[in-house]
């Protein structure tokens, strides 16, 4: 494995700088196709509003994937992710505009475990709301 971050150089409490991930309707359509999740709340505004949602919302798994991308980009190797779990605490509403919306992901090293493993606490926000809660990844560093 080729994690580029070294366990010995990481401290508990260390912050991983935030990254902005843009989300537009086209991203949700592409994600629907790749994942096979064609629930119309993720692409059909009329249907979303009929079932009481404010607008089309992103797949929770799309948001989770942005958190995963944040972690794998930091650690340097997607194979270093041992555990990744989230709670979807708020919806990512994606308006039908050219700019769509943004998911901002940041992280902090929460604890260091044996065997070069660390726990990263992840924060993801969109539209002023925390969209993931209890988001944690366990990764093995170099």
């Amino acid at each position, binding site marked *: 494995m*080729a994690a580029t971050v070294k366990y010995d150089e990481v401290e508990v409490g260390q912050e991983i700088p935030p990254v902005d991930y843009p989300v537009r309707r086209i991203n949700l359509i592409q994600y629907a196709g790749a994942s096979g999740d064609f629930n119309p709340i993720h692409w059909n505004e009329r249907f979303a509003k009929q079932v009481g949602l404010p607008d089309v919302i992103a797949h929770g798994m799309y948001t989770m994937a942005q958190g995963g991308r944040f972690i794998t980009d930091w650690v340097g190797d*997607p194979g270093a992710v041992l555990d990744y779990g989230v709670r979807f605490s708020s919806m990512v509403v994606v308006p039908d505009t050219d700019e769509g919306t943004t998911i901002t992901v940041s992280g902090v090293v929460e604890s260091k475990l044996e065997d070069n493993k660390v726990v990263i606490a992840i924060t993801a926000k969109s539209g002023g709301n925390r969209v993931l809660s209890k988001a944690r990844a366990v990764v093995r560093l170099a």
Partner: protein
Amino acid sequence: MALNRDFIGRSYPAPEPYEVSRVKIKEFALAIGDENPIYLNREAARAAGHPDVVAPPTFPIVFTLTGASEALADPEFGLNFAMVVHGEQRFEYRRPIYAGDVLNHTSTIMDIRSVGRNEFVTVRSDVTTLDGELVCTTYNTIVERGGAA
């Protein structure tokens, strides 16, 4: 309408193994906007110490719900799909998933509970090779809004 608690503990083997391909990993990686070469290029993956391209951490969502979807769609279960949102998700890895893997999985309904007006259903899927080696375990909690009202 409350969901049928008789379904707790029921297990559903996937109808057939899932063959992980480079093409599908690339399609999924591009759909999440991630152009990490370890997802897209076998040589880059090998240079990083992997036998082939690696699947992104959330990739198993593509195939792990096929087993349980049969149960969730059973009219006796009582789920209204139009009201379903995703509550929680977790992936626990023994090793990365690679292109070329042929994977079985069995999904088990672990828990059904009411929280306020909503129903929460947690499904665990154990993903294994054809030889039975555990590769990863996924935990998927869906929420039926208003289901407990």
